């Protein structure tokens, strides 16, 4: 209990003193996670829509696989990305290991199945409603996908936020591929792991509270900006 109150006090102190290190790692956390969410959204939403409206052999297998990949172990993803981008790996020549870019790649791999799967479910339901209409209106396949993504945007926002939520709290993969390097690849989760390892529970908890606050703030901001949960909206 004492540690928690100490953590809260430390979090408050860091915030009101505009601690430079805190703001740096918070900004990097946001940058990496928002970038990964953007990448996952750009891939996941059209893919989810495409899976919802197309019938092809092995479709059920693909969807089952996608759902299974929602539980991808971050440490394993981190390890695979590390091997691929390490100096002797196939993409080692790019020199991306221990950079924020490779952290974005790792997080995007982890959350793309989540975004795709939730998007697929949301669009599948909407497609059931719209199917006859869009066929009747002679909409092309791409026009159907556009209509489903646009009209299902609030449900799809939930998919993106679920991906963001998973990524912002992720530590295993980014620790391996980013290396938790001070002023380079240190983000909130890896900093928490480091402080905990050092026995600095107050600081670790402080960073934890800030991480939770950040996740809630981003979710609230998105909901407010997109005006969900207001009258007469879907």
């Amino acid at each position, binding site marked *: 209990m004492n540690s928690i109150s100490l953590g809260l006090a430390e979090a408050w102190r860091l915030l009101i003193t505009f601690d430079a290190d805190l703001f740096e790692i918070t900004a990097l956390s946001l940058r990496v996670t928002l970038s990964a969410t953007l990448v996952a959204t750009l891939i996941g939403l059209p893919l989810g829509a495409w899976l919802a409206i197309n019938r092809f052999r092995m479709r059920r297998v693909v969807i089952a696989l996608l759902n299974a990949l929602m539980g991808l172990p971050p440490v394993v993803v981190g390890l695979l990305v590390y091997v691929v981008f390490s100096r002797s790996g196939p993409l080692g020549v790019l020199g991306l290991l221990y950079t924020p870019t490779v952290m974005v790649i790792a997080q995007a791999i982890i959350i793309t199945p989540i975004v795709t799967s939730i998007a697929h479910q949301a669009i599948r339901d909407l497609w059931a409603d719209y199917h*006859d*209409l869009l*066929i009747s209106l002679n909409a092309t396949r791409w026009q159907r996908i556009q209509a489903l993504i646009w009209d299902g945007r609030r449900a799809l926002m939930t998919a993106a936020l679920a991906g963001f939520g998973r990524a912002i709290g992720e530590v295993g993969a980014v620790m391996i591929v980013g290396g938790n390097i001070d002023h380079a690849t240190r983000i909130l989760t890896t900093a928490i792991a480091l402080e905990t390892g050092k026995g600095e529970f107050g600081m670790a908890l402080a960073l934890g509270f800030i991480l939770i606050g950040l996740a809630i703030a981003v979710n609230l901001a998105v909901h407010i900006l997109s005006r969900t949960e207001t009258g*007469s909206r879907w």
Partner: protein
Amino acid sequence: MVTPILPLTLRDVELRRGGRRILGPLSLTVSGAGITVLMGPNGSGKTSLLRVMHGLERITRGTVDWQGGAQDVRARQAFVFQTPILMRRKVADCIAYPLHLDGVPRKAARARAAEMAAAVGLADALDKPSAVLSGGEKQKLALARALIRTPEVLFLDEPCANLDGRSTREIESILTRARDAGTRIVMSTHDLGQARRLADEVWFLYGGLLVETAASAAFFAAPRTAQAAAYLKGDLLP
């Protein structure tokens, strides 16, 4: 000169689902002008026939042919469903959507949608979300959206089911105006009064078969089949 999409010819069409015969075999031709009303008890195949003609059902046997050489056949016909399928958009955007698909610029599409909304009595609802409309307004929206491309053929599946007298009258007025403007209409209804008011021609279906076709006046005066006679009398058909 654009080739008209009519006549529409169905030859030996049969529709089966799960081994069960839903419709046919039947052959028919849709041509000329006016309003054809499909009548028959529940399960007689009215909705299935409309969907087959519009291309929403994959038939098991037979052929459905529009006038040879006609382009963009699907975009030149429209369908109004019994339960209106409304997009999650404002009324104006719902009505304008077919024009959006055709690549019409947004401003021009909205202006045309406003004209259509006024024509069906939805001028005051343009900026409302479609979900808040009443049942009659939703059906009028669906009609405005169907008519915005000025279709050559309009299919309607019981467009006034569950609507009150006033809404029914308004929708019938829209339909007669569309017919007078040259749109060929094929619709189903259970409402004998509506069929008498609107139909130029009646097709009577029973058990998935087209058992009688006749000019409206002749059908209501002296139906040729026992099933149609019983239906008009109000008897419960097996």
